[in-house]
């Protein structure tokens, strides 16, 4: 079997978890696992990767200090042509999604994105991914090719304990000059709001099911009765109904309250990632197949506009008692 390349993802001095997860998962597919690390003075990441990989290809150059998909594409394309791996894995992250489709087109390699499970059929990956916001799993067959590219959803593979001591091969940068057409400028931190929901003990999470911002008082009243803070799914923040510092999920915050009461939230992966560590999860949703019920401890399938006011009432009664 040909080698498996795994692209290491790092940002501002941290190697991101998906990197080690992918190395661990790739180790179970068969074949030699090669960690590809592009960065500036990130020897510590090379050492870490070596604990999970058979080999680390490490390109140390100032042009890789921050991610730039144009430069990553040039470097990866050259390394792939030189070493001839059969599979390339990268995270289905803001980095991977900005890079993989262009690399796949350039190399005429089949790509499947946002993979949630995969096995090998000889040299060929058989990936599974989700459709319709996680409501269905899709099983795919890739076109025959010499090289396959897959972007892997975070937490698809479980990170092992380090058990290897792969050789770290310091490699000359195959990219001779920086590109002018796309330049990294800076990072901008998210805005900070009035409530830090990562510190809240009780959260009521509001989703698309609330339908209009004029319905917000329904959940606000419940939150007030409980002494909880309001959190939100992406849809609610995108619509401008609650500020972005209330957003829970991949592009928002990760919360671990004692109770997360999800109201009108279907439970797409992007949201669940940010709240699955909550101690108790309760979901109220009218769709019995909503994925949120798969991670909740307690569920009510009903119209939130009927249940939530009743719940607020009952909690007030209990608290008064």
């Amino acid at each position, binding site marked *: 079997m040909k080698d498996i390349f795994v692209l290491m993802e790092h*940002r501002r001095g941290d190697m991101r978890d998906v990197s080690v997860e992918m190395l661990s998962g790739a180790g179970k597919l068969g074949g030699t696992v090669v960690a590809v690390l592009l960065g500036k003075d990130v020897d510590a990441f090379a050492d870490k990767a070596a604990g999970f990989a058979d080999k680390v290809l490490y390109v140390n150059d100032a042009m890789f200090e921050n*991610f730039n*998909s*144009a430069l990553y594409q040039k470097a990866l394309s050259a390394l792939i042509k030189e070493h001839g791996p059969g599979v390339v894995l990268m995270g289905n992250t*803001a980095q991977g*999604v*900005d890079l*993989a*489709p*262009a690399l*796949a087109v350039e190399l005429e390699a*089949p*790509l*499947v*994105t946002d993979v949630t499970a995969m096995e090998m059929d000889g040299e060929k990956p058989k990936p599974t991914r*989700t*459709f*319709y916001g996680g*409501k*269905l*799993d*899709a099983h*795919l*067959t890739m*076109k025959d090719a010499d090289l396959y590219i897959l972007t892997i959803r975070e937490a698809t593979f479980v990170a092992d304990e380090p058990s290897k001591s792969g050789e770290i091969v310091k490699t000359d940068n195959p990219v001779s000059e920086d590109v*002018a*057409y*796309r*330049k*990294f*400028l800076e*990072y*901008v*931190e998210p805005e900070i709001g009035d409530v830090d929901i990562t510190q809240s003990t*009780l959260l009521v999470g509001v989703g698309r099911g609330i339908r209009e911002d004029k319905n917000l008082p329904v959940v606000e009243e419940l939150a007030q009765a*409980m002494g909880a803070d309001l959190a939100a799914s992406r849809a609610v*923040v*995108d619509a401008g109904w609650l500020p972005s510092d209330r957003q829970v999920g*991949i*592009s*928002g915050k*990760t919360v671990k309250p004692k*109770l997360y009461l999800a109201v009108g939230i279907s439970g797409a992966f992007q949201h669940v990632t940010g709240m699955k560590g909550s101690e*108790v999860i*309760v*979901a109220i949703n009218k*769709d*019995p*197949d909503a994925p949120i019920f*798969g*991670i*909740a401890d*307690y*569920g*009510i399938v*009903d119209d939130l506009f009927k249940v939530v006011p*009743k719940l607020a009432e009952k*909690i007030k*009664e*209990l608290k008064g008692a």
Partner: protein
Amino acid sequence: MNMVVCVKRVPDTADSEVHIDASGKDIDKSRLSFGINEYDNYAVEEAIQIKERLEGNVTVISLGGKESDEVIRMALAKGGDEAIRLEDDAFAGGDALAVAKALAAAIKGLEYDMVFAGSLADDDGYAAVPVALAELLGVPHATYVKKVEILEPGKKAKVGRELEGGLMEVLEIDMPCVLGIQSGINEPRYASFKGIKQAAKKEIALKSAADLGLDASDLGEAGSWAVLEQFTPPVVGEMAEMLEGEPEETAAKLAAILKEKGLV
């Protein structure tokens, strides 16, 4: 500034039950409502806002059957100028690559400074079309874009990409370019009655695979990266304990559980 916006008509499944059909490779769409892919709606708004600030032209493009006209006309009603629909039976079954090839073939013939597309489609969630399209066109790209500032019309823009945790990566990009637009970048407008009336009269240019110079190997399953073999319901963990009854009862049960656990 000449801009192109790619839009897709998709079923609204966020708030509905989804059932696999008899083929096992599609869903039963008979009871679903359809509309513009949410991310594309933000892409349309971004293009129209730039046109209003800097003047220019917005061409709306979609791959799909006649039913996609409704989505195209809504984008025209909001401020789009021209429209192209790519229609061919041979497009059926294509994934993000096949779609990007058809879009690239249509856009190559246009004068454009910026191409906008939703960063992700609500149905397949591939998130690959904008980036693949840029590579096929041979122009720079950025996706997950949540801020666009035109530095020099037709030449240079500053864009912010949304990263994990809400961090923004700011970069400078040359035009022409393709931007994958993230939801929440702006506040999409509603079309005016006057706009809707005017859009109803606009012509939507139709292009077939042959018009675009595409051959069989670019189209449908043959032009795709992968083929969908089967849909299955997702594997769920241990299901929640479901509380049954009328709202009065379920609310009382839940309140009692929360009280017992010391959560309220």
